[in-house]
C-alpha cells in the first residue's frame, strides 16, 4: 500500500529519519504529505539550532492545515533544506528525497532505537488511519 521505505525509521507524527554516517536526515512521510495536500510553506530552524526529540522543530503549512514538525531525535541541526523556501511543493513531489527538511547531529544516538521501523509504522497507519 503506502510508500514506506524499509531502511528509514519513523515517528507517530509522520516524520522519517535516515542514518547517514552518524547523522540523521529528517523529513515527512509520503502519507503525511498526502494528508496535508499541497504544501505551500515550510518553516525550518537555522543551522546550529538545537532539536529536541518529540518537540517541534518547524512548521509545515498546506492548503488545508498548519502542522508542527517534530524532531525524531535530539541534537544539533547541522543542515537545513533552504530550497524548500522557494519550492515547498518538493515536499509533495519527493518527500523522501529532495523534500528532506533538516539534518541532525544527534546528542543521544540511542534515541534511534525508540523510533518505529517501517513495518511498525505501516502497522500504526493501518490501525489509526483510513
Amino acid at each position: 500500500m503506502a510508500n514506506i521505505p524499509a531502511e528509514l525509521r519513523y515517528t507517530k507524527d509522520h516524520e522519517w529519519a535516515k542514518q547517514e554516517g552518524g547523522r540523521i536526515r529528517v523529513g515527512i512521510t509520503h502519507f503525511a504529505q498526502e494528508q496535508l495536500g499541497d504544501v505551500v510553506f515550510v518553516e525550518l530552524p537555522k543551522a546550529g539550532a538545537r532539536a529536541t526529540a518529540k518537540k517541534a522543530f518547524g512548521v509545515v503549512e498546506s492548503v488545508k492545515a498548519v502542522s508542527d514538525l517534530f524532531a525524531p531525535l535530539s541534537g544539533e541541526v547541522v543542515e537545513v533544506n533552504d530550497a524548500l523556501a522557494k519550492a515547498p511543493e518538493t515536499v509533495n513531489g519527493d518527500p523522501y528525497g529532495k523534500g528532506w527538511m533538516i539534518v541532525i547531529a544527534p546528542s543521544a544516538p540511542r534515541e534511534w532505537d525508540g523510533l518505529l521501523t517501517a513495518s511498525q509504522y505501516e502497522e500504526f497507519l493501518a490501525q489509526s488511519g483510513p
Partner: protein
Amino acid sequence: MAMPRYDKLVFEIGAPGRVGYSLPASDVPVEDPRAGIPDSYLRREAPALPEVSEFDVVRHYSRLSQLNYGVDTHFYPLGSCTMKYNPKLNETMARLPGFARLHPLTPPASAQGALGLMHDLAQMLGEIAGMDAVSLQPAAGAQGELAGVLMIRAFHRANGEKRTKVLVPDSAHGTNPASTALAGYQVVQLKSLANGDVDLADLEAHLAPDVAAFMITQPNTLGLFEQRILEITDLCHARGVQVYMDGANLNAILGITRPGDLGFDVCHFNLHKTFTTPHGGGGPGAGPVGVKSHLEPFLPAPVVVRRGEAYALDWKRPKSIGKLQAFWGNFGMLVRAYTYIRTMGPDGLREVSENAVLNANYIMARLAKDYDVAAPGPCMHECVLSARKQKKLGVTAMDIAKRLLDLGFYAPSTYFPLIVEEALMIEPTETESKETLDAFCDAMIQIAREAEQSPAVIHEAPVTTSVRRLDQTRAAREPDLRWAPRR
C-alpha cells in the same frame, strides 16, 4: 467592441486623465507644499489613483454587488459559522440617529441610552450563558478567547500560582491554540475520541500542576454534545484548572442549557453567529466574553456599570487585564444583538436552538445513506459528514464543495474539524425552510450519484460562477495581495 469589464479592479478601468469630479476654483491663496513641508516628506510623483468617471464607479460597484454571495441571496450552510438570516430590524435600530451619530467620546451623562443598552445586553448575555459578568469589548470570537485566557492568567497570578500550559483538543478551531499562545501559554494538544469527545483518562493524565486551563468547544466541533461535561469540569477544578468554553456553537443550546451551569469559568459569544449580527464582509464582528464571579475583577476595563439610575464607565479596576479595543467595542453590533435578543425573547431563543438542531438532524438523516457520517448522531446544530467514500472514487470534499456552487448553494465548511477525513461540516441554522433543506439534500445526493457515474462534471465544477476553480495552491505559494501601478 465589447463593453468595458466593470468587474476588473477599479484601477484597471477608466482612462488616463479621466476624472469624476469638478472642484470650484479655489477662493483662498494656493500655497506651494514645498514651502511648508520638509523635502523628505514630499512625494516625487502623483499617487496612482483610479482615473474613472462617476458613471464608471457606479457600474463597477454595482457589478461587484451583483457578484456578492451571502445569506441574503443563498443558502449558506458553512459549518461552525451559524450563517443565519440577519433580521433587517437590526439594521433599522442600529441606524437610529441616537445610536448611529453618537460620538464614542460623548460624556457618559449624554450617552445614557447607549450605555444602558450595553449594560442590559451584558446582563442578558450573562443570563443566557449562566455567567456572572460579561465584557462587550472583544471584536471577534478569537479576541474573546484571548481576553478569556488573559483573565485566567491574571487569576492564577493573583493567587501566586505559576501555571504555564493550556490544554486544547485536536478537534479545536485554530483560533483556540492561537489565542492561547498569544496569551503567553504553551499549548498542549490532546487527542480526541473518534466522535470528538474528550478522552477523560487522557485528560486526567494531562492535568499536571502547571496546567492553567482546559479549552473546549461545547457542543464539540463534530456537532455533538460532550455528554460527560460535568465530570470534565469537576475534574479540572479539582486540579485548580480553569475551564474555557469556546461559544461558537452556542446556537445549539440557547435556553436549553448554560455554559455556567455546565461548570465553565469563561465563555465567549460570537454575536455574528448566534445573535444575528452580520458575518464577514457585512460588518465587523463582536465576541463578548463572559466569566464567573471569581474572574470578574480581571475583566477588560472599562466596564459599564449602573450607579443608582445612571450608567457609567468604570475605569477603576486595578486587576483588569486592560483595554482591548478602540473605544467600547463594536457598538453597532451590540445594538443589533440587543435588538435580536429582545425581539426573540426567552422562549423564542429556545425555539431557535430547537429548530437549529432539528434542521441539522434532518439533513444528517437524509444524507446518511450517501455519505459517511463522522460520528453517529443525533447531532446538535450541525452535522459533520465525511467524503471518504467519494474519495475512493477520486472525488474529494473540495470537489463536492465546488460542485455545490454550480447547483446554487454555498459550500459547507470543508476539512474542518481536522480529525475527520474529508470533512464536510453542514450547519443549516434554524432560519431555513424545509424546502431549502430538501433542495440542498437533493443536490448533495445528486453529487453522490455523479461521483459514481459521471465524476467529470464534478471535477470541472464550478462552471456557472463568475470565476472557475481557483488555483488555491498557487494563491498561497505566490500571494498577490495588492494592485501594483503599471510603470
